[in-house]
């Protein structure tokens, strides 16, 4: 039986969809397995692999909070990420605006200096920063987790993203604002910032996730369990011998990951675009 062109197109389309679905398995399966295992008891987790638990064990989610101060740790992650995002938005847009619009001696050199920071991994400066924080008495506090992302390579990346965006904006409105007697700060706040919502949103999204997912810095700077942030807390669900307590660990991981995934599913377009912006320009 010969296929018509239309049928052939449908078959081709089906083959593509099938192929992509197969490739998507290792991307999606871990999420499904994580959530399903979060409801299993310690025995079933190592039994026959099935996606739907035999017995739904909701107690895992209670025990997560009993095992360590998980609510506190969750709150730590949220407030640090909000703080880092707010500070980064203000400082990067201020500096980015100056670099885009204002002519001041040393601006070129400053750009070069900042640009070079993008090439230096955090691992390179973490040792001196450790001693700096120790000297400042900021060990086992959240101060380094706020200051280092804001002023480190990530903050510089945000500054450049903002600068690039300001450069692309038309100058006329700002000139008009100047005529109306607005100060520089006023122009930045009342004219430039409202026009840069896409860039600000991009910086906010990437920065929030950057802080939320930070691991090396909490590992190095934090020692008390109630100060932990989520990534550190998640790695901490172990029995006294250091073996993972999988049912608790996966329940906790689900609690940490699912809210982010829900936000991602709602705003996937915006979020993906934000990463594209930072990747291309940063």
């Amino acid at each position: 039986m010969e296929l018509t062109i239309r049928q052939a197109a449908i078959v081709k389309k089906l083959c593509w969809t099938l192929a992509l679905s197969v490739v998507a398995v290792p991307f999606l399966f871990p999420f499904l397995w994580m959530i399903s295992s979060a409801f299993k008891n310690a025995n079933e987790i190592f039994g026959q692999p099935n996606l739907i638990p035999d017995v739904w064990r909701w107690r895992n989610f209670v025990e997560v909070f009993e095992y360590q101060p998980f609510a506190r740790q969750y709150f730590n992650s949220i407030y640090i990420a909000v703080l880092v995002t707010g500070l980064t938005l203000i400082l990067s847009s201020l500096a980015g605006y100056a670099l885009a619009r204002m002519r001041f001696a040393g601006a070129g050199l400053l750009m070069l200096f900042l640009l070079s920071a993008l090439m230096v991994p955090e691992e390179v400066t973490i040792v001196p920063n450790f001693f700096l924080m120790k000297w400042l008495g900021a060990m086992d506090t959240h101060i380094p987790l706020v200051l280092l992302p804001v002023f480190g390579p990530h903050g510089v990346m945000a500054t450049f993203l903002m600068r690039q965006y300001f450069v692309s904006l038309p100058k006329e409105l700002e000139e008009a604002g100047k005529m109306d007697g607005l100060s520089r700060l006023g122009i930045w706040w009342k004219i430039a910032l409202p026009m840069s919502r896409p860039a600000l949103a991009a910086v906010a999204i990437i920065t929030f996730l950057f802080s939320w997912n930070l691991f090396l810095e909490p590992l190095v700077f934090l020692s008390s369990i109630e100060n932990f942030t989520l990534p550190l807390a998640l790695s901490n669900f172990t029995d006294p011998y250091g073996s993972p307590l999988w049912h608790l660990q996966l329940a906790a991981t689900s609690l940490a990951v699912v809210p982010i995934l829900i936000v991602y599913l709602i705003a996937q377009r915006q979020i993906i675009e934000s990463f594209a912006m930072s990747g291309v320009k940063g």
Partner: protein
Amino acid sequence: MTGHIRTGTTATRAPWLTLRRREMFEGWLFVSPTVIGFLIFFLGPLIAVIIYSLSEWNLLSQQMTYIGTANYRDALIQNPDFWHVIRNSVIFAAGLVPLNMTLALALALALCRPGRGVVFFRTAFFAPVVTSAVAWAIVWKFLLQGEAGAVNQMLAVIGIDGPNWLREPDWAMAAVIVTRVLKMVGLNMILYIAALQSIPRDYEDAARLEGAGNWQIFRMVTWPLLAPSTLIIMVITTIGSFKVFDHIYLMTGGGPENGTLVLAFYIYEQAFEFFNVGYASALAMIMFAIVLVLALVQIMLRQKGSA
């Protein structure tokens, strides 16, 4: 910008404050928080790490002694661990970069045009990027356990006896590479999609009129036009692969038999577990040098490409 027009208050109060001076003052005021933070938390530590790397630091007596390049000699010549670690890092990068980029490009080509299901697949492939590396590593560690792991149980169904992935050095390296690619490939896919969408459709249409097939169009039109993006993506990915830490820390802890001990992990271990501050700082400088060379190669290639 003539310098004659002055704004009301400043003109009367401070005649020396010309527009030019004012702009300069304001410019530095705007960048000052960023610059001060940059000096304290970045440039200062960068200089400090150079000094540390030339010193021996006794943590008990809190004394720093200048020992010249001994830490570097220790790494490059005396300590066999160092070259083992570099070897691991190179293997990691050599496995990750081609796999990541090939998959990213293939997915981008499949998903660069709007169509039914495209959004779903893009969302799916990008989902691990927004997930924390810690969560991703924990779940994959769970899936890749010896006999009880879901991956091996599924392989058993089709008659394959899977290895104990994270307990055998070679398999462990392969496992961390592949799971890292799954975590990060979505980002490169998005960058490639952006690059593909910036290629005018006319080129492809013209080639098709000339009778070129899909493969020929890709080979002769798309691929050459993608070259600048490919270069940038390649350097970003390579640098990223040298920085990988949390993923390996959580999945294998550098083991088994140091089979996945990569440079970033080694620095962490030397600095914060063994407190060899001087040695760790020398390692950090070597890492800096590697990243710098990679970045410079990128800039040089880009200039050569545009010339």
